């Protein structure tokens, strides 16, 4: 599998979530994702970027365009140095929140993605990786 393009965006403040949506939209458009596919990956990115700001103290988003044979996809990696997630299964459950949100961010982002991976431990920050492949809506 090849990474045909990669860019890193710092996400420190809630207002920058809008910027994340635009950058991810551009990547999805560049791969000629359908409108529904674009909307799903942009919405997932919006949820995870906000989580990173609200719970991780901000972090970095890496946007990668993937090429795997004839498959093309977008991979998003959200990395923060925040407090980490003590119980990942609980955090994925709809309605679970330690903040003021709805608790749909992680579970919702997972449903909107084709691949979803969390690496996190208390005190070691959080890395969430999602992939959406073109033509999988």
């Amino acid at each position, binding site marked *: 599998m090849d990474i045909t393009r990669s860019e890193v965006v710092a996400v420190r403040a809630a207002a920058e979530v809008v910027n994340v949506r635009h950058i991810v939209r551009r990547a999805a458009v560049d791969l000629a994702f359908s409108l529904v596919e674009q909307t799903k990956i942009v919405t997932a990115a919006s949820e995870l970027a906000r989580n990173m700001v609200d719970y991780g103290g901000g972090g970095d988003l890496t946007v990668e365009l993937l090429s795997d044979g004839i498959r093309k996809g977008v991979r998003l990696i959200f990395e923060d140095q925040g407090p980490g997630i003590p119980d990942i299964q609980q955090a994925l459950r709809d309605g679970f929140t330690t903040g003021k949100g709805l608790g749909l961010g992680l579970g*919702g982002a997972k449903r909107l993605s084709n691949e979803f991976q969390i690496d996190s431990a208390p005190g070691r920050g959080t890395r969430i990786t999602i992939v959406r492949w073109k033509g999988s809506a």
Partner: protein
Amino acid sequence: MQRIPILKMGPYLLVSIQVDMDDRTAMALQDDLMEQIVRHRARGVLIDISALDVVDSFIGRMLADTAAMARVLDADTVVVGMQPSVAITLVELGLALTGVRSALNIERGMDLLRSRIEGPGIADGHHEE
């Protein structure tokens, strides 16, 4: 921070969201709407989201909360013009927006507000102050 303009038309408030809102802009719109409902004694609020290509859980919750708060202030809310791709994504995200009345376009949204506020049969634009 941007502010979304709110137009007053008779007993109604009209909002057309034309920008990708950050969270503070969304919350400011909610506050402004509540303040103007009271100031103008508005009976209905129409929010056009046809220009929004993303509605995430924050904006979705803002819309649902706005409708609930307006209800407490004796005003009905209709959200109009949601793009199909946004509707598909919202439901998959887990946000069904129950409690938010919606209509396909502004015209139908206004009809819905009029019929609820003026009662059936007189939804022809007349309104007694």
